[in-house]
């Protein structure tokens, strides 16, 4: 390596190091702080945990600091089913939402690629148009739509689909609606990017070799769009697991996803160490799919 790139200029080295510096400063350091807090004990003090690293105490202080750390909080997570259940709930909601997003997003992305080029640009713009409005405002709008005498129930009553207005808010259904609505662009865009790159002549070749259209989809289109499916699924699944705002506003207290559990520990119980432990376990849960994704992406890059 060093032989091939003997003299990198100072500027070039700086440019390469900026993203690393960024990641260290804004991801690794905060994570280490959270990790440290998760190994601490609650205290009625400022900050609300011990031990606090005291530079002035010298070696003895350092030794006391490490002696004060323990895995008690992690053991506590295991002892109360509340935490386990909210992890399961989060993974369940994320998995089903991702599935629904795929079922809705794939046909959308596929349909966009089938339109003429100029129309495609407009449709892709339409997909990302919701980002022009604040995420929070859009979720509040859904609260309005879904409330007891809101537009959705009025419509259902007017069309005589229901006789009694059903309750939407504070149910899992509302959470699913909010999540699928909010994350749809993150599913459609990577799928569109993959499908749009597929060579038209591959479909013609399949037809030429005697394959009807619907079968070409299963034999050619779907296998070749697998990287897009994976990218879209991970882009949605990972943030949905840690989602807080949507379940909090639309699901109310009945849905307890892991994001809400962390919030409660931090702000209601003022239990920073337990909250941090919950967060660290969550990160570990999510790193696994990211590693899988990276591995897939690297294999894809090798192929090209």
């Amino acid at each position, binding site marked *: 390596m060093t032989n091939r790139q003997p003299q990198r200029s100072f500027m070039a080295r700086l440019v390469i190091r900026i993203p690393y510096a960024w990641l260290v400063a804004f991801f690794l350091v905060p994570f280490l702080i959270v990790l440290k807090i998760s190994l601490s004990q609650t205290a009625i003090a400022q900050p609300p945990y011990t031990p606090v690293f005291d530079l002035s105490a010298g070696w003895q202080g350092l030794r006391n600091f490490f002696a004060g750390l323990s895995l008690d909080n992690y053991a506590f997570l295991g002892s109360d089913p509340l935490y386990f259940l909210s992890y399961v709930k989060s993974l369940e909601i994320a998995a089903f939402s991702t599935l629904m997003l795929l079922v809705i997003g794939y046909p959308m992305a596929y349909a966009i690629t089938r339109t003429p080029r100029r129309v495609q640009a407009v449709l892709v713009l339409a997909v990302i148009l919701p980002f022009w409005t604040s995420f929070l405002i859009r979720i509040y709008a859904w609260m309005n739509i879904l409330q007891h005498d809101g537009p959705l129930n009025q419509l259902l009553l007017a069309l005589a689909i229901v006789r009694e207005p059903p309750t939407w808010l504070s149910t899992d259904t509302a959470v699913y609606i909010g999540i699928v609505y909010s994350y749809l662009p993150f599913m459609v865009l990577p799928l569109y990017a993959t499908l749009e790159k597929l*060579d038209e*002549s*591959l479909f*013609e*070749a*399949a*037809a*030429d*070799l*005697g*394959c*009807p259209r619907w*079968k070409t989809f299963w*034999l*050619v289109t779907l*296998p*070749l769009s697998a990287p897009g499916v994976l990218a879209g699924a991970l882009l949605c699944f990972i943030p949905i697991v840690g989602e807080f705002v949507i379940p909090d506003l639309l699901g109310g207290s009945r849905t307890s996803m892991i994001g809400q559990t962390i919030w409660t520990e931090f702000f209601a119980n003022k239990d920073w160490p337990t909250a941090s432990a919950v967060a660290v376990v969550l990160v570990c849960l999510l790193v696994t799919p990211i590693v899988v994704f990276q591995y897939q992406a690297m294999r894809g890059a090798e*192929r*090209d």
Partner: protein
Amino acid sequence: MQTVGAKRGFAPWADRTLQPLLRIEGLSKRFGAFAAVDHLSLDIYQGEFFALLGPSGCGKTTLLRLIAGFERASAGRILLDGVDLATVPPHRRPVNMMFQSYALFPHLTVEANVAFGLKQEGLPKLQIGERVADMLALVKLENFGRRKPHELSGGQRQRVALARSLVKRPRVLLLDEPMAALDKKLRGETQFELMDLQRRLGLTFIIVTHDQSEAMTVADRIAVMDRGRLMQVAPPTEIYEQPNSRWVADFIGNVNLFEGRLGDDGTSVEGTAVGRLRVAAKIDAEPRSTVWVAVRPEKMRIVPSEPSPGPPAALENCVAATVVDIGYLGDLSIYKLRTDDGVPMQAAIANTGRLTERAIGWDGKVWLSFPPEAAIVLTR
């Protein structure tokens, strides 16, 4: 009808009792106001190696795609074995296409690519395996069956594409610029292999190409196309030796063209830029009508001194000129010349001897001549 130069005495187009395999009748394909294929009619016979040749944008690929079924005709009919293909979708047509981009399925192995078409027919697995193995052996890829397309060289990929389109034994194989992506040497070898394959399998091939030497090499007949129309359909030698128009004469190879008026005797052309020219055959045109004399550069003779005025014929079709440029191609030398009146001409001389010193050099006057038999007279 003349059948000059048909290979191996094969000329089904001259046999009026034969039914064509593929009949194209008044076929048009319009994209908006632009006619890519313009009222085109053509018959292609069983066992022919047929080439569609023309400049880019002449509609040759559109014609191929119409036959494959990827484009819908605006007017006209395509009949295969007497059956109108208009309502037959591409996946039911007994024709296969080899794509210019090869269009190999990147997620499938070589074997699976070749087997793809046979699987659609629902053949038993064992039979598919056999036919795929036979086909891969035929294109000399028997050891590459388990590889993916991206693990092959360009030439190997081209063979996989060929194998995949041949394995279904199509009534007509359509080849869209099949050798465009190969380097020159490999292209030359592949052309001969393709001819050999076509002859052995006895299939009908239609190849689209913009490379005239490729079309001349492989084809039994060539259709020269321009702006959606057929300019001439004939065997390669006839296209070259008896072009039917200035456009074809100029498009295929190089040519010296002289405009003049047909003489009263019908065997001379008067008033050209190089004077009166004598031609061999009697021309079937009105005397004094405008005609063009076309002479291929390699049929020109160059001599360094004025021919002696012996027999009267010796001074016919002879003009003095000076050498402007010499292009040495190894086997040939191309001479760009200019007559004393400033008319540009060109001649190609085969370098048969190992010349250390050219007989005709850069400076000095030379005399250019051609025999009357070498002249082609064109009326349009």
